[in-house]
Structures are given as C-alpha cells and as structure tokens.
C-alpha cells in the first residue's frame, strides 16, 4: 500500500478538520467521528504489523519528497523495527482513549479535535526521519496537550498544564539548538537523519558530548528522568483519564525513542562514552526512586505516575547495556509499559468517575462491590510488578539480564527494586480493593461494557506477550541489533578520535 505512513499520520488530522465542521451540540456525532478516524489508523497499523519485513535493518515504507527545498528540508518518513513498535502502540491506544473519553460532556468538539491533532503529532514524531519534520511534529504535540490538560483537567489543571508545557518546551529549545548545530556543522547541510547519521565525524569529540548532552536533556524531560521528572505527577493527576493514558502510554516513550533514534543513531561515540552515568546509573536511580516515592503516595493517580517513572528507568538501563537482550528488553518494556500503565490509568479512571476522588485511604473492600473490576485491576497490578507469565516480566528480565554483563552492580540495585514494587502495589491493592467494604461506596456500579472494552484488548496483549513475546520481539530485534552495532562502531571511532 502506497504512502501508508502518510495516510496513518494525517488521517487523524483529516478527522480533526471534519470534527471542526460538525455542530458543537451533537456530541454523539463528534465522538463517533473521532472513533471513525482513529479506528482506520489502527487498521492500517495492523496491516503494517503483518506486512512489515522483520529481517532488514533499513527503513521501510519510506515517503521522501522535498518540502522546503532551499534549506534541504524534506518530508521524509519511514519506519524500522523501533518506530513500528511505537507506531503500533500509538495506533492502539488512541481509539481506546477515544472510548475512554466518552464521558466528556463540555467542549466536546474542541476536546476531540485537539485529541486527533495530538494523534497526528504523535504518529508524526515516530515516523519522521527528517530532523526538521521531527521537530515540527514534536511541537505539534505540545499545544493540544496543554489545552487538553488545562481545560478538561482537575482542580489544579492550569498549573499542571503550564508546568508541562514550559518544561517540555524548554527541552525543545535544546532540541532546536542541537538540530541547528547538526545542520550547520555538517557538509552538505541536511536535516535528513539518515544522512546525519553518517556525518557525526564532522564534530570533535567534545562537541559531540555537548550535543549529546543537550539532546539528552531534551529527551530526559520526556522520559521522565530524575531530576527532570516533577512535571509528571502534576500532569498525570490533573489530566483527564484518557489524556493520562496517552501521556503515560505514548508521550513518555518519545523521550527514549528520541535517544535511540537520534542520540544513538547520530552520535554513537558520545553514546558509548556517556551511557554509564546518564543512562544506566540514572535509570537505576529512577527505578528505585520512583518506587520509593510511589510507596508514600496517598493519591492513586500520583502513585501510578511515580510507578511510571520507575518503569521507564528499566528502559534506560536496558538501553545502556548494549547487549541484544538489554536493548530488546528496553524497547519491549517501552511497549509493555505503554499497555500496562494505560490499563492502570484506565482503572483509576473507573473508580474516579464513580467516587470523584482518588484518595487511597478513602476506599476499602472494593472487591466485594465491584468484583470484575477488581479482577482486572489485580491483573494489571501483577503485570506492573513483573509477574512471570505476563508481559512485564519478559521485558524486565531481558533488561536486567542484558544489563548484568556491563553493570552487575547497578543490576543488583535495580533487581532489588522488584521487592519495593511488589510492596507498594500489594499494599495499595490491599487498602483499596481488599478488606472490609467501605459503607460509603456499597452502591457503586460495576465496571461497564464500554470501560471493559477499553481494558480488555490491553489485558489480552499483556497476557499474550507473556507467553509469546516474539510477536513484538521479532519486529524490533533486527533494527535494535543494528543500533547496537552502530554504537559499538561509534565507540571504536570515538576512541580513535581521542
């Protein structure tokens, strides 16, 4: 199918245009239109999954046309193993989020229009292979998020929205600067990432380090890595359920995706030098710190937010391992975390919609009131703590196994965090879902069909990938091994440069 990536990326944008033309009062029609434009995108994603060639390292389904020719800016999109996993994740989560947003009742038109714009931005970031195009899509994502959090969010939504926006934007400035340095510093001046990847030698090793650092800070804000993470708890807590899901499920992956695509691909020598402190050690710290902070939370959503920080630490550690298991585990963890955390936020949304608060100590014994809900929650919680048989285990074990070869000490610290994770998750499960039922909530409605429909596909994926992880691993393996090779080659030339 020709131009499949362009279709996938811009179909939601088309949907946004259609929605803007609809009358604002017809909520049902607006929601159906949104669904009607996100489902085909998912369909295209599934087609891609089937048709993708898993054995090559080159970019597939490439569309490349000049855009702003005088600056050699091109509309250059394509996917490899790394991006297809993220594209699939995005395509999967968006219709589910549209379903989860069914309860929005004010500003419906604006909400879904912004959401579809957001989807275009997200898909564009993952498929863009021209740095300028990448940057444009990166910025396109920010504005809808700002409004989605700031208008449809919770009590402190304006604070959370502006904090998110300014923080990410500050990172984007570094991204812009680095992009320009890369553009002007290489001969001939090009923005295409495939060409930049071959020209990193134009910079001295110190300059490469600085560039890497600048790019890293921009992406670290998104991961989010300590200490650039404090925007996340606020953004997650205040955002509406579906936006939290998309934020945790997709946006956080852009940070690590960016590091893999740009830092690893374009600046491999610096990657090899800086990986220990800035990826492995920082990642391990994320794991432990996120778990500890999660344990102390009383707001259910904030707890899940900190658990996200903890889980993304595994991605960072795995990336830095430069072993096949490590990097595969890292990207698999990106995918798995997207599905598992999406489930967690959807589940929190279920109870918040009914009780209108998220205070952990304010519930109790929900298992007696909403047993099916409890069952799904237990599945999600055990997936989050990496119970073998579910997908989280595979990615965590691959990461830790891969990391042991280079960083055994850090692996020991990271592995010990599984106890902390089990601790806070089981404790929370006990306080909220087990125990004597809280009289205030005896009449709460059980989870309904729509909410189940948003959760079950994710639950199915979590279970299936635990038994058959190669559904995803086969997609990503070839490209990730290639990335590892690039870094190793870069490390060798880096040594020569000194």
């Amino acid at each position, binding site marked *: 199918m020709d131009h499949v990536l362009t279709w996938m990326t811009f179909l939601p944008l088309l949907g946004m245009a259609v929605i803007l033309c609809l009358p604002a009062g017809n909520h049902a029609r607006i929601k159906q239109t949104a669904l009607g434009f996100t489902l085909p995108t998912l369909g295209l994603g599934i087609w891609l999954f089937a048709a993708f060639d898993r054995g090559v390292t080159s970019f597939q389904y490439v569309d490349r046309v000049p855009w702003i020719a005088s600056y050699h800016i091109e509309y250059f999109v394509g996917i490899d193993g790394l991006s297809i996993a993220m594209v699939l994740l995005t395509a999967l989560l968006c219709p589910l989020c549209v379903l989860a947003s069914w309860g929005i009742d004010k500003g419906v038109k604006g909400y879904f229009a912004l959401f579809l714009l957001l989807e275009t931005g997200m898909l564009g970031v993952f498929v863009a292979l021209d740095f300028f195009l990448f940057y444009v899509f990166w910025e396109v994502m920010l504005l809808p998020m700002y409004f989605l959090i700031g208008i449809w969010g919770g009590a402190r939504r304006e604070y959370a929205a502006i904090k998110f926006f300014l923080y990410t934007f500050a990172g984007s400035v570094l991204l812009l600067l680095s992009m320009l340095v890369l553009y002007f510093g290489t001969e001939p001046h090009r923005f295409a990432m495939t060409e930049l990847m071959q020209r990193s030698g134009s910079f001295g090793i110190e300059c490469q380090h600085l560039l890497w650092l600048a790019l890293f800070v921009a992406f670290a804000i998104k991961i989010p890595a300590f200490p650039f993470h404090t925007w996340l708890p606020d953004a997650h807590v205040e955002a509406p359920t579906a936006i939290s899901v998309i934020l945790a499920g997709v946006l956080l992956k852009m940070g690590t995706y960016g590091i893999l695509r740009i830092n690893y691909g374009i600046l491999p020598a610096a990657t090899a030098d800086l990986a220990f402190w800035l990826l492995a050690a920082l990642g391990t710290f994320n794991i432990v710190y996120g778990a500890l902070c999660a344990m102390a939370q009383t707001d259910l959503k904030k707890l899940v937010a900190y658990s996200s920080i903890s889980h993304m630490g595994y991605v960072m550690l795995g990336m830095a391992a430069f072993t096949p298991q490590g990097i595969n585990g890292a990207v698999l963890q990106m995918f798995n975390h997207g599905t598992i955390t999406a489930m967690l936020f959807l589940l929190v949304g279920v109870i918040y919609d009914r009780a209108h608060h998220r205070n952990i100590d304010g519930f109790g014994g929900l298992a007696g009131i909403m047993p099916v809900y409890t069952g799904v929650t237990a599945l999600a919680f055990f997936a989050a703590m990496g119970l073998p048989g579910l997908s989280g285990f595979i990615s965590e074990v691959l990461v830790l196994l891969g990391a042991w070869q280079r960083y055994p000490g850090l692996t020991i610290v990271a*592995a010990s965090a599984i106890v902390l994770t089990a601790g806070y998750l089981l404790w929370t499960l006990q306080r909220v879902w087990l125990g004597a039922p809280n009289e205030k909530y005896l009449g709460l409605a059980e989870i309904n069909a729509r909410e189940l429909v948003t959760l079950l596909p994710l639950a199915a994926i979590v279970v299936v990938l635990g038994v058959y992880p190669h559904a995803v691993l086969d997609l990503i393996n070839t490209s990730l091994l290639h990335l590892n090779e690039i870094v190793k080659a870069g490390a060798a030339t880096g040594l020569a440069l000194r």
Partner: protein
Amino acid sequence: MEPTAVTFVRWIPLLPLAGAIVNGIGGAAIQRRFGKGTIGVLAVTPVAAAFVLSLVAFLRLLALVPEERALLDVVSRWIAIGSLHVDLAFWVDPLSCTLLLVVTGIGGLIHVYSTAYMRDDDAYWRYFAYLNLFTFAMLVLVLADNLLLMFVGWEGVGFCSWALIGFWWREPVNTTAGNKAFIVNRVGDCGFVLGVFALFWALAASGQGTLVFREIQQHAASLEGRVLWGMPVVGLVTLLMFVGATGKSAQIPLHVWLPDAMQGPTPVSALIHAATMVTAGVYMIARLHFLYAMAPATLAVIAGIGAATAFVAATIGLVQHDIKRVLAYSTVSQLGYMFVAMGVGAWSAGVFHLVTHAFFKACLFLGSGSVIRALHHEQDMRKMGGLRTALPATFWTFLIATLALTGAPLSAGFFSKDEILWQAWSSPHGGPPLWMVGVAGAGLTACYMFRQVFLVFFGASRVDPHVAAHVHESPAAMTLPLVLLAAGSLLVGFLGVPALLGGGNRFAAWLAPVFASGHAPAPHAVHDPGLEWTLMVTSVAVAAGGALVAFLIYQRRVLSADTFAAALGGGPYRVLLHKYYLDEIYWAVFGRGVLMLARLGAWFDARVIDGIVNGSATITRGVARLEGRFDDRVVDAIVNRLANGTFALGTRVRRLQTGNINTYLYVVVGAVTLVLIAKLF
C-alpha cells in the same frame, strides 16, 4: 544423552490451567447454575488426569534404559534474543517425575479433601480456580527445562500462594499475611534472578550462554576457576540462587512468612506450605546439583542454615498454641533437614525426605483441618482435648503421620530422616556437629509433635460446650485422603531402605542417573556400618526421649509445662513465643525503614526537586516583575523624558513665533548682516 521427544507431557500442567481458566472466568455462573458439586468435579478432574499422565510418564521412563531416562516436550519458542534461547519446554527425568507424582498425587488428594472442607464457602469456585492455577504453576516449575521457565513457575506459585493465603480477603490480617508471603518471597527471588544472570553471562564468557538445564550441565565444567569480584563465579551463582531457595522454602532469615501463611484455608497450608511450593527450593538445588557440587563454600552455608533452621524452628514450635502454627514451624524445621541433606551433597536423601515429608505433613495438616472444621474453626489447642473418641479416623491418621514425622522406626520419616542424619555425619561436606544439631532437632520434633497429639486428642476435653455437642467425624471426602496419606507415610519409606538394613535403596537408585555427574558421596557400603547403627539407634532414642518428655508433661502431668515456661524468669519462654521477635525486628528495620525512606523520597521530590522547579518559576516571575518595573521606570522613563524634553524645547522655541512681523524682519536683517560679515572674513 538423547532425550525422547514426546508431546503428551505438556498436558500435565495445561489441564489444571484449563481447569483454572474455566473456574476462574465462568465459575461464579457455573456455581449458581449447577452447584458446588460441579465446581468440585471441574477442579478435581484436571488434577486427576494430570496424575494419570504423570504415571504414564513414569512408566515411559521405566521403559527406558537408566542412562537415557529423559523425556522432552518442546511446546514452542519462548525467548530467543542474542545467545539467550529458552523455549516453553518440559523435561521429565527421574527427579522431575518424582516431583510430578508428588504434586499431582498429593495435590489431587488435597483437591478432593477441599471439596468437602470448603463446602460452606461461597467463593468455592474462586478457591478451586486458584488451587488449579497453583497446580499448574507448580508443575511448570517442576517440568521446566530451563531456569527462566522455572522462574515463571516459581513466581507463579508465589502469586497463587498470595491469592490463597488472602483468600478470605475481607479480613485485613489475611491479606497482610498474603502480602508478607509475596514480598518476603520476592526478596528471595531477587537473589534467584541475579544468580541466573550471573550464571548466564559466566557461561557466555566461556563460550555458550544458556539457561537450559541440560546445557548448563554440559558446560558446567567451563565455569571452574572463573572469578567475579574476587569470588568464584559458581560460588556466587549458587549462593544467590540459594537466597531464592531461602525465601521460597522459608529458611532463616526469610522464614517469617510461613507461619503467617496459616491464615489461609487449611488445605492450602497442606498443599502449598507443606507438600509442594516450599519444596521448590530443595528441588532447585537438586536440579542444579552439579553447580552446587562445585561450590563447597555455598554447600557449607546451606548446611549451616538448614541445621540452624531445623533447630530454631523446632524450638519455636514447642510453645505455639495454634494447631496450624505448630505444623508450620514443623515444616520449616523439616525443610531445614532437607537443606542439610543438600548442603552435604546428599541429593537423593534430600529429595527422599521431600517426598516422605509431603505425605506425612499433608496428612497432618489435613488432619488438623479435620479437627478445626469439627470444632467450628477453633484453632487454639488449649481449647481442644480428648478428641480421639469423637474423631477416630482423624486421630489414627494423625498419629501415624506423627510417628512418621518423628522418625519412628520403619515409618517413612524414619528412613528419610535417618538417611539425612547419616549423611550429615559421614559426608565429606558434613561432620558430627551437623549431626548433633540434627538429632537435637529430632528430639525437639518428637517433643512438640507428641505435645500436639496429647493436647488435641488425649486428656480431658477443654472444648467449648456449645461446640462439643456438634463434634463429629469429617465426611469421606476428607477422611479418605487422610487414610491414603497415612498409608503413604508408612509405606513410601520402603522405597528408600538403606543397605544397612538390607534394602537396596531403590529411591536413590532411581535418582542416581540424574545425580551421577555430581559429586555424590560414596555409597554406604564403604563406610562403617557399626557407626551407622550407633547413630541410627541414638537418633531414635533421642526422639523417643522427646516423646517421653511430652508424655510426661501433657499426658501424665508429672512435670508441669508452666515450670518450663517460668524458667529463668519467663524470658526464654516469651522469646520463643514471640518467635525470637524476628517479625518485630524485620518490621521495625525493613518495614518502617522503607516506609520512612519512601516518605523521605516523596517529600524530597515534592519539596526539593519540585521546589527547584517551582522556585525557578517564582524566580522567573520575580525577574519578570523586576524587568517590568525596570521597563516602566527606566526605559519608559527615558522615552517619556525624551518626549517631555522635546515638548519643553518646543515651548521655548515657540516663543519665536511672536506673530509680529517686525520681529521676523529684525531676524531676517540680523541674519543677513551676519552672513555678510562672515563672507567678508
């Protein structure tokens, strides 16, 4: 050795899994529609079928030559990344086959027992879903052909244990016990996975990175002499994996979860916390015996911890009042014996004790369940007594199992425990001190077990009168398993009769091919039979002495328990009663410690890190305000001053516009004159 490829073995774990799924998803509806009987059938059938298949596997193995006894069932590829290649594959050799029979056989009996025991519970279907799921996980653990799949089963049984301990989840004390079990197990699991990683990479460095057991065994020799952080790699790996075993098999210091696990239904305690899950650690060491044989330091640690646990747990069991707690500590203690066996390299002795212990401990737990149910869920032994007439079947099976546990001659426990004690003394890794601790433990074991028997079944009845009126024997579904298990406790021992007593130790012979490559200790025939007889008689005598003490205290009332309790100011008694205050210490150090750390982290995050972020925002706003003021007062002032100055200048210059022509003409004339003068000069 070439394993025989088969495809039926996969159904051994998969049938219980199917049962779990059916009961888990449709159980509530089925129970409403067809009643609890159907649920029971749906639950027992898969396990019974699995038992039949295990027998088939056993017979298939028997049909093979001893050196070729291995069946391999590869279901599918699981993970193949880099040099790591593990499949969903099941491996049946004499060792796993033994465990298979135990898990499915005794598990099946416990399933049958549960159909009657849990009859009054509404969540009947959920119980059986979890019980089937547990059976599945345990079978995966036993059958896995690689370490990662074994870990899936390892944690899977941990999950089911959590679910079943906290089965009556409305009571926080139950769910807390479940959480405690899972978390303490996870501490052990940490060690386990780290050991797996170290093993994989050590093997990879030697040429072949693998986690498949038979391949590890083939390449184990290449690990000789490898060092990591100054320690031999094999020693490190085995030690880390032993940490995992410590957690799963409740050895010191990670034993604290097992007594609390008694919060769960009694059949659960029988199955999971006596017969199967807790033996996983022993099984794992047996599986990897070839590695442990290369690490004498670790073996010493294992033996030491095993012995310490055997002794300490027995002391605690001596003073407990809850009927199940006594048995829980007894389990911990007996597991200690199994680890002593593993620690001295007596692999088959340890596995033998695992098998016999499964029989009599399950029997004891189920018997206690029978008592508890008859007394309407009374578990305090101080409120029991004289029940042997009311509960005859329970009493006799309990007594037989007790005799087996204490090592009464010719019972199963006698043969297995004797084997361990003999190996503890005579093995090159063992020694007399180990034997002495073991014998002391045996004495204590006899003491507390007979204490239990006397308190529960003999003497005057201390049962609450309301309850006493309704005491009656349990239904057949419960007593039949008891009888079968008691029979096993007597008969299974004859599989392992040592050469000393004329037997051929068929059990050890059966397992010999599995352990052949390890540094198995030399068979008995080489050692001193006289010494062996002496040790055997001594240990029996000590056990008998312990039983006698219990008899004197609790039956004949010649000695008083209170004297012992009050000895040395009651301090030692209180220490024992409170389990050496270990739970309190752990909570204070780890529980409170982690919570404090967590709160500190959250405070740090919200106040310091976020404080910096918000502070930077505040500073930016302040700078903006200053800049605004600067803009207003300074920059704008300049502009304004410029305007004002221009205006003032304008005012002054405007005065030239007098409107008076004469003035203008004066100016013109003056200017012309000036120009003329200038031109002249």
